């Protein structure tokens, strides 16, 4: 009897090692393209274009240098402005709305909640033309504020859903105590509710920042030379003649860096945000 048990656990252990090894291999496979991009970005253009690839080629900063020589800073600044301001606007609008959908819910609050989600299903591209025509007629094209407004509308439903799911966990007793003490709505929001849902706000802000930073279609159609964002800058990058692989890799790394840093630093927030707050 005892012999049988050791055999079983022995087999289990071996299977466990195998599965752990498999997990490592899969993880490495998924990160490999990014590592490859990182390595290539530090190679010279000639080494980057070699086939078979030369992994041990000398490292250089030439790729980054020639990327920064093309003047990417205005577009990076535009991306930062659009992402940060739209994220702030989203939280500002979503927080009271989520309050009115959870703590002191309006009538038919589920309908309102699903209205918000349904706007996410409306294909962006279907509203693009009127927005373009409107912006053109009022001289709003190539203006970063247009993107800020559109990114806000793009992310607002996500934030409303997330924050609602967090707010519905605020204990009622605290709120009742606050209202007995005579605190008004704004004070209740700020001093009682906000601290409890700060993690929710952080998750929502992270996701909104990432989605705004990544957005291409609106930025591509509605901006020109002035308000161009970093993803648009990236797409216009490859048209140049000659070898460009190291430069493109360097550019992709630089543009992805803010998202990579934010995402790594807040992995748990990422999960909460991606699941619209359904997973905490």
């Amino acid at each position, binding site marked *: 009897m005892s012999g049988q048990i050791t055999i079983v656990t022995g087999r289990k252990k071996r299977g466990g090692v195998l599965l752990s090894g498999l997990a490592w291999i*899969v993880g490495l496979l*998924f990160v490999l393209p990014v590592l490859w991009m990182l390595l290539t970005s530090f190679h010279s253009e000639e080494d980057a274009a*070699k086939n078979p690839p030369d992994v041990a080629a000398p490292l250089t900063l030439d790729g980054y240098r020639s990327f920064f020589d093309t003047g990417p800073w205005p577009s990076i600044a535009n991306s930062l402005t659009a992402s940060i301001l739209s994220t702030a606007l989203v939280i500002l609008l979503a927080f009271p709305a989520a309050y009115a959908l959870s703590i002191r819910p309006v009538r038919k609050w589920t309908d309102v909640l699903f209205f918000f989600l349904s706007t996410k299903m*409306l294909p962006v*591209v*279907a509203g693009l033309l009127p927005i373009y*025509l409107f912006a053109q007629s009022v001289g709003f094209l190539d203006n970063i504020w247009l993107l800020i407004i559109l990114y806000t509308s793009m992310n607002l439903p996500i934030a409303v859903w997330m924050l609602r799911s967090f707010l519905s966990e605020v204990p009622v007793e605290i709120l009742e105590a606050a209202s007995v003490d005579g605190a008004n709505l704004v004070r209740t929001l700020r001093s009682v509710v906000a601290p409890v849902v700060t993690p929710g706000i952080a998750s929502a802000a992270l996701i909104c920042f990432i989605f705004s930073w*990544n957005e*291409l279609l609106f930025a591509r159609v509605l901006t020109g030379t002035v308000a161009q964002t970093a993803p648009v800058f990236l797409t216009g990058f490859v048209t140049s003649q000659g070898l460009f692989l190291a430069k493109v890799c360097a550019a992709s790394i630089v543009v992805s860096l803010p998202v990579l840093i934010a*995402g790594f630093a807040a992995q748990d927030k990422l999960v909460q945000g991606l699941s619209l707050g359904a997973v905490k």
Partner: protein
Amino acid sequence: MTVETETRPGRHAAPPPGGEGTLMRRTGDWARRAPLLPALIFMIIVTQLPFVVTIIVSFMDWNAYYPDERGFAGIDNFRRVLTDSNTRSAIWVTILLTAGVVLISLVLGLLIALLLDRKFRGRGVVRTMMITPFLVVPVAAALLWKHALYNPSYGLFNGVLKWLFGDNAPQPDWISNQPLWSIIFALVWQWTPFMMLILLAGLQSRPLDVIEAAGIDGANQWEIFRYMTLPHLRQYLELSALLGSIYVVQNFDAVFTITSGGLGTANLPYTIYQTFYTAHDYGRASAAGVIVVIGTILIATFALRSVSTLFREETGR
């Protein structure tokens, strides 16, 4: 779990009817609505109003190249869009692309989530490695796949083939040979981490004591997975599939970057973008937009029904 909606906590219920006067109740209603209004009005203006304009333009003859010929076109645009072979191919591509990416990354995501649900050395590191693809800016990811991996003369894939088989190794042109699959693979690489993260969170919220009890009662691994884990995961699978579909169906970045819509890979967002941005045929682009929206509404109605089960369970807590 079947009576969730009825057992909602009291604070979710509307104020009791009667008692105070109608006027007071009405002001109370507006006080409740006030915090909601800015967000709601903002959304209606920015997302619904343009769509109304799209519907109007879709019935118009309007090409920016011929500004004098603007007028009412009836259902001409719709007829032209629906009989156009490009549009039909775009609809098909959109379905294939979305279904392919969502299904493959859902299955891969589930398998990897199961792998990462065990305790082992370096689990945190592996999880971080897995997340990385999702954190690369989509345009950058598309550029990476197109130039650094797929490129026939210096891409990594053909480089690896040369490593393995020497100078006579086959050097396929991946994108020209399999344009749609090239896009699907690049997107699966980005979306698998997304699915994995949500499913892993779902796995970790399983009631462990029940599963242990099942193991003691003699259920084997497969039975535990089939009859306990999978039903528990169902809502997480639905959620990740729905969210994945919402984003992938609208994909523009990968199609635009990897093939520029060529080689039969133009999906609906790309086709509409082209009709409007390069051909300047506003009437036709709008008609295509309206058709996309109708299609999305049909699909979304089913999808929303499945999310609402998840949602009811949540409020029932």
